[in-house]
């Protein structure tokens, strides 16, 4: 398990001996037979396939259900590292909620000159229908997935604040379940903190945000675009684990002033809707009129305080990549503290100087679309050839404000099991955060995404990335 390298390896640091969090695991691993482990890895795949833990890939006609590769070597985080991370995430999530409230009300941060007005005024993610709307419990982002990368022993950066509808939590839970089944003995050796409470916490957290119109125990439901959506497995998984209904737009309509679902016995009002549909498709009456996925009038019921939508419409303004570059200012403005977690230095291509720099340094930079996600439409300079870089430079020049650029980070690695034994691969981490009026809860762990190709820095599942179980040690 040796990996002296230029990248920080979470198992061995920059050296050759296991770091403390991995000591117990390595003790176990050294006594394992590698062929046996590989066999287990195969079993895991059969298990996933049979359970139907698949995702659909856009733009592929045939065989659209694919498995996300799962790696059997866990990613391990010490209790001390975790507590620092969670403090930083919590601070950030608080700031994001305050920011969202402000942006849809007085816009004090703009008046104070801390973020430029154009950033909001020209932002497509700004949702005018949310102006003046105060969501039940004051919560905008009920569920956040903060993407974090590591570059050294104490170097953590926030890469993205996913404040719309972060996905992947089902993999966090299923990965743990799989590890427990495959290596039960490991969990008696290593004190790993539980993640299995997440669905219960999610339901509690959503229920705590019920609207005033709610009578009695809040009725929660998950809104999915349907079985063809790439994350359908996760939608049904979460509904199932929470013990709530999984609904589609055509199951819902306005009945007696409430959004209600059609049951075998008539319509039942819903109090909290955990929607996994983008804003634009949410309500054909108020947004995209051609949407067949949404619920006409839901935005009106929402504005009348009759239902909670989680996450609130319009939260996209907070995870926009151009806003991201102002996160340190945003955290400071609303919390009065310096940001605990670092931001990746970001060039906003809308600024002429930044654009000039970016165009000159494309081979070293990662360039992303401001509103993009899933690793689509981005350029990874060091991995691109001359032609790709030239083509991207043209796109960049034609619409600079659509892009931001960041240095290529030396993402930490964690070993994965390959045919030739263990080999380091780059990872990131998405912890899942639940926000309710009383508290912010972060499940110890999260989704570790791993680039399965040697040297690759792209961990997105849509681009062939895999996942690992993520352990936070109980220390």
């Amino acid at each position, binding site marked *: 398990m040796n990996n002296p390298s230029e990248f920080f390896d979470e198992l061995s640091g920059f050296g050759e001996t296991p770091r403390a969090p991995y000591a117990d695991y390595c003790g176990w691993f050294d006594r394992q037979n590698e062929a046996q482990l590989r066999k287990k890895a195969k079993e895991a795949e059969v298990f996933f396939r049979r359970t139907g833990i698949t995702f659909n890939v856009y733009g592929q006609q045939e065989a659209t259900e694919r498995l996300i590769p799962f790696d059997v070597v866990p990613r391990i985080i010490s209790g001390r590292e975790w507590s620092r991370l969670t403090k930083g995430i919590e601070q950030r999530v608080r700031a994001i909620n305050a920011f969202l409230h402000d942006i*849809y*009300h*007085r*816009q004090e941060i*703009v008046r104070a000159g801390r973020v430029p*007005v154009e950033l*909001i*005024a020209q932002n497509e993610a700004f949702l*005018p*229908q*949310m*102006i*003046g709307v105060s969501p039940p419990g004051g919560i905008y982002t009920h569920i956040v997935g903060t993407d974090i990368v590591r570059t050294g022993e104490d170097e953590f950066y926030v890469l993205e604040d996913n404040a719309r509808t972060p996905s992947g939590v089902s993999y966090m839970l299923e990965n743990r379940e799989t590890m427990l089944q495959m290596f039960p003995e490991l969990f008696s050796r290593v004190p790993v903190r539980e993640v299995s409470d997440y669905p219960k916490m999610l339901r509690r957290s959503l229920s705590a945000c019920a609207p005033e119109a709610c009578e009695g125990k809040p009725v929660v439901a998950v809104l999915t675009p349907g079985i063809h959506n790439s994350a359908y497995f996760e939608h049904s998984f979460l509904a199932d684990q929470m013990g709530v209904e999984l609904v589609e737009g055509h199951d819902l*309509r*306005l009945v*007696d*002033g409430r959004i209600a679902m059609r049951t075998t016995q008539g319509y039942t009002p819903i109090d909290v809707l955990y929607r996994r549909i983008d804003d634009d498709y949410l309500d*054909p*009456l108020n947004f995209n*009129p051609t949407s067949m996925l949404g619920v*006409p*009038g839901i935005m*009106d*019921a929402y*504005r*009348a*305080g*009759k239902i909670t939508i989680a996450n609130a419409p319009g939260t996209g303004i907070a995870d926009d990549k151009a806003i991201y570059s102002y996160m340190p200012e945003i955290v400071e403005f609303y919390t009065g503290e310096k940001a605990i977690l670092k931001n990746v230095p970001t060039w906003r291509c809308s600024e002429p100087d930044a654009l000039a720099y970016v165009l000159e340094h494309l081979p070293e930079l990662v360039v992303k679309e401001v509103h993009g996600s899933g690793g689509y439409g981005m350029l990874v300079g060091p991995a691109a050839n001359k032609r790709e870089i030239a083509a991207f430079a043209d796109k960049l020049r034609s619409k600079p404000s659509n892009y931001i650029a960041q240095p290529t980070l030396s993402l930490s690695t964690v070993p994965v099991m390959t045919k030739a034994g263990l080999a380091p691969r780059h990872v990131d981490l998405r912890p899942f955060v639940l926000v309710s009026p009383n508290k912010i809860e972060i499940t110890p762990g999260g989704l570790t995404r791993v680039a399965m190709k040697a040297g690759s820095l792209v961990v997105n599942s849509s681009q062939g990335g895999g996942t690992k179980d993520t352990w936070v040690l109980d220390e």
Partner: protein
Amino acid sequence: MRVKIRHTTEYAYNGQVPYGLQQLRMIPKTSAGQTILSWETRVEGGSKEVTFTDQHNNHVELISLNPETRSISIHCEGEVDTADTVGVIGQHGGYAPLWYFLRSTSHTKAGPHVRALVKAVGKDYESDTTRLHALSAQILSQVPYATGTTDFSTLAEEALESANGVCQDHAHIFISAARLMGYPARYVSGYLVMNDRVEQEAGHAWAEAHVAGLGWVGFDVSNGVSPDERYVRVATGLDYSEAAPVSGIIFGGHSESMTVHLQVQQ
């Protein structure tokens, strides 16, 4: 002036509508120059689901059509006391930031015709209001009032090009040009007392621009004046689609026909 309004809008469908919703922006609020004495909305063939306040501070009611209905009618009736404020509504209120009123919409997107119009009006005026009045007069001279050539989907550019339009087109052109000049601007739907008649075919529409110092000021291009005591403001928006008295979504694929009965009198 005490203005009495009776307004009935009827939609008839050529089949039973399984499900449908209508958003109504038909309730005026007390504001500068107008005090609502009484106001009532009644719906036949539908029922009120929710009411809320939108981003323009409009009072919105959402109506669902009764299942399998073939028609729905909406009656509004009320009395409003008005006063002449020479079109001045006053300082901007509410949470919608002023920059929001500089956003162009599909109806008000400026093209070559609007740009030419702005150029023709020029910049050299003693005040913002005189410049905006000049704009208003220029629009009316280029686009005389005429019904039948445009409809609710006509864009500002198209109306300028066709050189004919109604109050809605005038408002859209004004808004588009005012925004191009840098003035936040919005669309107003409402009622107008006419001197020669009580029965009217439709409500009225005009525009408001935000001017430093005065705040919001109204301009009725069609009549070449700023609104006075004959005007009742009902709803505002970036353009017609945000301030329309009725906008909805009807399932079942039936065609609809609309009939309006409107009486506005002193």
